[in-house]
């Protein structure tokens, strides 16, 4: 079973709008990471938020973490067609082995 679960499963928005996707996990974590996967490609690391952080920014990305609710959210502002991809949260455990959710598929229409 997966540690993380993303919500929604699919999201379709217009270019310029913001996209928010959520992740819930089950056990305690050291940090939580978000990855992007374009169709037919490997995953690309986007951002890491540590368990003692509540919010982190990187460019148009904003990640929040609520350890009391075991949840995280990824906000992409001013979305572009190139942001179309699947987004996964991941929680690393022993020796960096990561457990991934099933992802949110984001479609940004031009």
């Amino acid at each position: 079973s997966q540690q993380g679960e993303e919500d929604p499963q699919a999201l379709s928005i217009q270019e310029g709008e913001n996209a928010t996707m959520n992740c819930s996990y089950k056990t305690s974590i050291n940090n939580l990471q978000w990855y992007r996967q374009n169709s037919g490609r490997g995953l690309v690391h986007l951002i890491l938020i540590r368990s003692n952080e509540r919010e982190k920014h990187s460019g148009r990305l904003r990640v929040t973490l609520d350890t009391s609710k075991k949840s995280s959210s990824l906000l992409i502002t001013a979305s572009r067609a190139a942001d179309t991809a699947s987004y996964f949260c991941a929680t690393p455990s022993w020796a960096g082995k990561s457990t991934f959710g099933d992802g949110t598929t984001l479609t940004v229409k031009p």
Partner: protein
Amino acid sequence: GAGVSQSPRYKVAKRGQDVALRCDPISGHVSLFWYQQALGQGPEFLTYFQNEAQLDKSGLPSDRFFAERPEGSVSTLKIQRTQQEDSAVYLCASSLGTGTTLDQPQHFGDGTRLSIL
């Protein structure tokens, strides 16, 4: 190389055949991971190497799956007597792996798409 390289990109095999999938990690990366990704799902952990040592193989689905990294760089995932349920994308990832690895990002290859007929 600049990134993680996997070959072949696509592999079609008949049920019962053996297959071998190759991963070339980023030079100098100590940690290497194999994942299996079914259509529409996230990657599922298979096995983990630190240099040539296989430290965790808890995710390998059966004894038909075998992975090695004999010289601590290139790794091969072998599947014997393939079955239809083995059809998936097999992803390899590497990370620097020095010190605490929990906060090190993993760098993924583009995967091998395996289809078993």
